[in-house]
Protein backbone atom coordinates (compact mmCIF):
# COMPACT_ATOMS: atom_id res chain seq x y z
CA UNK A 1 0.00 0.00 0.00
CA UNK A 2 1.96 2.97 -1.25
CA UNK A 3 1.04 3.94 -4.77
CA UNK A 4 -2.70 3.33 -4.54
CA UNK A 5 -2.57 3.20 -8.34
CA UNK A 6 -5.81 1.28 -8.27
CA UNK A 7 -7.57 2.77 -5.22
CA UNK A 8 -7.31 6.41 -6.29
CA UNK A 9 -8.54 5.95 -9.88
CA UNK A 10 -11.34 3.67 -8.65
CA UNK A 11 -12.63 6.34 -6.25
CA UNK A 12 -12.25 9.00 -8.96
CA UNK A 13 -14.22 6.83 -11.40
CA UNK A 14 -17.18 6.64 -9.00
CA UNK A 15 -17.05 10.40 -8.43
CA UNK A 16 -16.83 11.01 -12.17
CA UNK A 17 -19.92 8.89 -12.83
CA UNK A 18 -21.83 10.76 -10.13
CA UNK A 19 -20.72 14.08 -11.60
CA UNK A 20 -21.76 12.92 -15.07
CA UNK A 21 -25.30 12.27 -13.86
CA UNK A 22 -25.74 15.29 -11.61
CA UNK A 23 -24.14 17.92 -13.83
CA UNK A 24 -24.73 16.71 -17.38
CA UNK A 25 -27.07 13.80 -18.04
CA UNK A 26 -29.68 14.19 -15.27
CA UNK A 27 -31.44 10.98 -16.24
CA UNK A 28 -32.90 10.39 -12.77
CA UNK A 29 -31.40 6.88 -12.75
CA UNK A 30 -30.47 7.09 -9.06
CA UNK A 31 -34.12 7.70 -8.16
CA UNK A 32 -35.28 4.54 -9.91
CA UNK A 33 -35.86 1.51 -7.64
CA UNK A 34 -35.09 -0.71 -10.66
CA UNK A 35 -31.55 0.68 -10.69
CA UNK A 36 -30.83 -0.16 -7.06
CA UNK A 37 -32.43 -3.61 -7.29
CA UNK A 38 -30.36 -4.28 -10.42
CA UNK A 39 -27.16 -3.14 -8.71
CA UNK A 40 -27.80 -5.55 -5.83
CA UNK A 41 -28.17 -8.41 -8.32
CA UNK A 42 -25.10 -7.25 -10.26
CA UNK A 43 -22.99 -7.12 -7.08
CA UNK A 44 -24.20 -10.60 -6.16
CA UNK A 45 -23.02 -12.01 -9.47
CA UNK A 46 -19.87 -9.89 -9.37
CA UNK A 47 -18.87 -11.65 -6.16
CA UNK A 48 -19.13 -15.01 -7.96
CA UNK A 49 -17.39 -13.99 -11.19
CA UNK A 50 -14.84 -11.63 -9.68
CA UNK A 51 -14.22 -14.06 -6.85
CA UNK A 52 -13.22 -16.63 -9.47
CA UNK A 53 -11.04 -14.19 -11.43
CA UNK A 54 -9.15 -12.88 -8.39
CA UNK A 55 -8.84 -15.97 -6.17
CA UNK A 56 -5.30 -16.07 -4.83
CA UNK A 57 -5.01 -19.85 -5.23
CA UNK A 58 -5.19 -19.59 -9.04
CA UNK A 59 -5.74 -15.98 -10.06
CA UNK A 60 -6.69 -14.92 -13.57
CA UNK A 61 -5.99 -11.30 -12.61
CA UNK A 62 -2.96 -10.56 -10.44
CA UNK A 63 -2.77 -7.23 -8.60
CA UNK A 64 0.27 -5.39 -7.33
CA UNK A 65 -0.51 -5.19 -3.62
CA UNK A 66 1.34 -1.89 -3.34
CA UNK A 67 -1.27 -0.29 -5.62
CA UNK A 68 -4.31 -1.24 -3.52
CA UNK A 69 -5.48 -0.88 0.06
CA UNK A 70 -4.75 -4.57 0.44
CA UNK A 71 -8.26 -5.20 1.71
CA UNK A 72 -9.70 -8.20 -0.13
CA UNK A 73 -13.29 -9.14 0.66
CA UNK A 74 -15.29 -11.24 0.12
CA UNK A 75 -13.10 -14.16 -0.99
CA UNK A 76 -9.94 -12.53 -2.38
CA UNK A 77 -11.64 -9.70 -4.26
CA UNK A 78 -9.80 -6.35 -3.87
CA UNK A 79 -12.48 -3.97 -2.58
CA UNK A 80 -11.45 -1.53 -5.32
CA UNK A 81 -13.08 -3.91 -7.80
CA UNK A 82 -16.50 -2.97 -6.42
CA UNK A 83 -15.88 0.71 -7.15
CA UNK A 84 -14.60 -0.25 -10.61
CA UNK A 85 -17.69 -2.38 -11.27
CA UNK A 86 -20.07 0.24 -9.90
CA UNK A 87 -18.58 2.91 -12.16
CA UNK A 88 -18.59 0.64 -15.23
CA UNK A 89 -22.16 -0.58 -14.87
CA UNK A 90 -23.64 2.74 -13.72
CA UNK A 91 -22.02 4.65 -16.60
CA UNK A 92 -23.52 2.21 -19.11
CA UNK A 93 -26.98 2.40 -17.51
CA UNK A 94 -26.77 6.22 -17.56
CA UNK A 95 -26.08 6.26 -21.30
CA UNK A 96 -28.88 3.73 -21.78
CA UNK A 97 -31.33 5.90 -19.84
CA UNK A 98 -30.27 9.05 -21.61
CA UNK A 99 -31.47 7.55 -24.87
CA UNK A 100 -34.87 6.82 -23.37
CA UNK A 101 -35.39 10.51 -22.66
CA UNK A 102 -34.64 11.61 -26.17
CA UNK A 103 -37.67 9.83 -27.55
Amino acid at each position, binding site marked *: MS*GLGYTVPAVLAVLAVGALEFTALRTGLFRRPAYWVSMLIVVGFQILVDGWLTKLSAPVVVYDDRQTTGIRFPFDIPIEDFLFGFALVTAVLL*LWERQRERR
Partner: protein
Amino acid sequence: MDHWQYLIVLGACLAITLPLEIFRPGVYRQAWRATRAVLPVAAVFVLWDEVAICAHVWRYSRAYITGVTIPFQMPIEEVLFFLVIPLCALLTYNAVSAMLVRFNRR
Protein backbone atom coordinates in the same frame (compact mmCIF):
# COMPACT_ATOMS: atom_id res chain seq x y z
CA MET B 1 -8.36 -26.15 -21.34
CA ASP B 2 -6.98 -23.73 -18.72
CA HIS B 3 -6.14 -21.16 -21.38
CA TRP B 4 -9.83 -20.81 -22.11
CA GLN B 5 -10.81 -20.12 -18.51
CA TYR B 6 -11.36 -16.37 -18.74
CA LEU B 7 -13.24 -16.73 -22.05
CA ILE B 8 -15.43 -19.49 -20.61
CA VAL B 9 -16.34 -17.29 -17.63
CA LEU B 10 -17.40 -14.50 -20.01
CA GLY B 11 -19.35 -16.97 -22.17
CA ALA B 12 -21.14 -18.25 -19.09
CA CYS B 13 -22.12 -14.68 -18.16
CA LEU B 14 -23.66 -14.18 -21.61
CA ALA B 15 -25.43 -17.57 -21.52
CA ILE B 16 -26.91 -17.06 -18.05
CA THR B 17 -28.28 -13.59 -18.87
CA LEU B 18 -29.56 -14.46 -22.36
CA PRO B 19 -33.02 -15.63 -21.16
CA LEU B 20 -33.59 -12.18 -19.62
CA GLU B 21 -34.13 -10.92 -23.15
CA ILE B 22 -37.69 -12.33 -22.96
CA PHE B 23 -38.61 -9.27 -20.89
CA ARG B 24 -39.75 -6.33 -22.96
CA PRO B 25 -38.51 -4.12 -24.48
CA GLY B 26 -35.27 -6.13 -24.46
CA VAL B 27 -31.64 -5.22 -24.90
CA TYR B 28 -30.53 -7.17 -27.97
CA ARG B 29 -33.75 -6.00 -29.65
CA GLN B 30 -32.48 -2.44 -29.13
CA ALA B 31 -29.03 -3.17 -30.47
CA TRP B 32 -28.24 0.39 -31.52
CA ARG B 33 -29.28 1.83 -28.16
CA ALA B 34 -27.19 -0.82 -26.40
CA THR B 35 -24.22 -0.10 -28.66
CA ARG B 36 -24.39 3.59 -27.89
CA ALA B 37 -24.54 2.86 -24.15
CA VAL B 38 -21.80 0.23 -24.03
CA LEU B 39 -19.11 1.37 -26.49
CA PRO B 40 -18.26 4.85 -25.13
CA VAL B 41 -17.90 3.47 -21.60
CA ALA B 42 -15.92 0.45 -22.83
CA ALA B 43 -13.53 2.79 -24.63
CA VAL B 44 -12.77 4.69 -21.41
CA PHE B 45 -12.31 1.50 -19.39
CA VAL B 46 -10.09 -0.10 -22.04
CA LEU B 47 -7.90 2.99 -21.84
CA TRP B 48 -7.80 2.75 -18.02
CA ASP B 49 -6.96 -0.94 -18.30
CA GLU B 50 -4.15 -0.28 -20.77
CA VAL B 51 -2.61 2.32 -18.45
CA ALA B 52 -2.96 -0.02 -15.44
CA ILE B 53 -1.28 -2.88 -17.34
CA CYS B 54 1.56 -0.62 -18.53
CA ALA B 55 2.00 0.71 -14.98
CA HIS B 56 2.00 -2.86 -13.59
CA VAL B 57 -0.98 -2.18 -11.35
CA TRP B 58 -2.39 -5.54 -12.46
CA ARG B 59 -1.60 -8.29 -14.93
CA TYR B 60 -3.18 -11.45 -16.27
CA SER B 61 -2.01 -15.02 -15.63
CA ARG B 62 -0.83 -16.43 -18.93
CA ALA B 63 -2.13 -19.82 -17.85
CA TYR B 64 -5.78 -18.72 -17.99
CA ILE B 65 -5.93 -16.57 -21.11
CA THR B 66 -5.69 -17.47 -24.79
CA GLY B 67 -2.71 -15.21 -25.39
CA VAL B 68 -4.51 -13.18 -28.05
CA THR B 69 -3.94 -9.50 -27.29
CA ILE B 70 -4.76 -6.10 -28.69
CA PRO B 71 -2.14 -3.33 -28.63
CA PHE B 72 -0.46 -2.70 -26.34
CA GLN B 73 -0.56 -5.70 -24.03
CA MET B 74 -4.22 -6.16 -23.37
CA PRO B 75 -5.71 -9.67 -23.48
CA ILE B 76 -8.66 -9.97 -25.85
CA GLU B 77 -10.62 -11.40 -22.89
CA GLU B 78 -10.30 -8.11 -21.03
CA VAL B 79 -11.63 -6.19 -24.03
CA LEU B 80 -14.59 -8.56 -24.22
CA PHE B 81 -15.14 -8.13 -20.47
CA PHE B 82 -16.05 -4.49 -21.09
CA LEU B 83 -18.68 -5.56 -23.62
CA VAL B 84 -20.04 -8.64 -21.85
CA ILE B 85 -20.46 -7.30 -18.31
CA PRO B 86 -22.30 -4.12 -19.41
CA LEU B 87 -24.60 -6.26 -21.57
CA CYS B 88 -25.35 -8.51 -18.57
CA ALA B 89 -26.07 -5.41 -16.49
CA LEU B 90 -28.39 -3.97 -19.15
CA LEU B 91 -30.26 -7.28 -19.38
CA THR B 92 -30.63 -7.33 -15.59
CA TYR B 93 -31.89 -3.75 -15.55
CA ASN B 94 -34.28 -4.48 -18.42
CA ALA B 95 -35.69 -7.51 -16.58
CA VAL B 96 -35.95 -5.81 -13.18
CA SER B 97 -37.65 -2.79 -14.73
CA ALA B 98 -40.19 -5.01 -16.49
CA MET B 99 -40.90 -6.96 -13.31
CA LEU B 100 -41.35 -3.82 -11.21
CA VAL B 101 -43.80 -2.42 -13.75
CA ARG B 102 -45.80 -5.66 -13.54
CA PHE B 103 -45.63 -5.64 -9.74
CA ASN B 104 -46.81 -2.02 -9.50
CA ARG B 105 -49.79 -2.72 -11.74
CA ARG B 106 -51.26 -5.18 -9.25
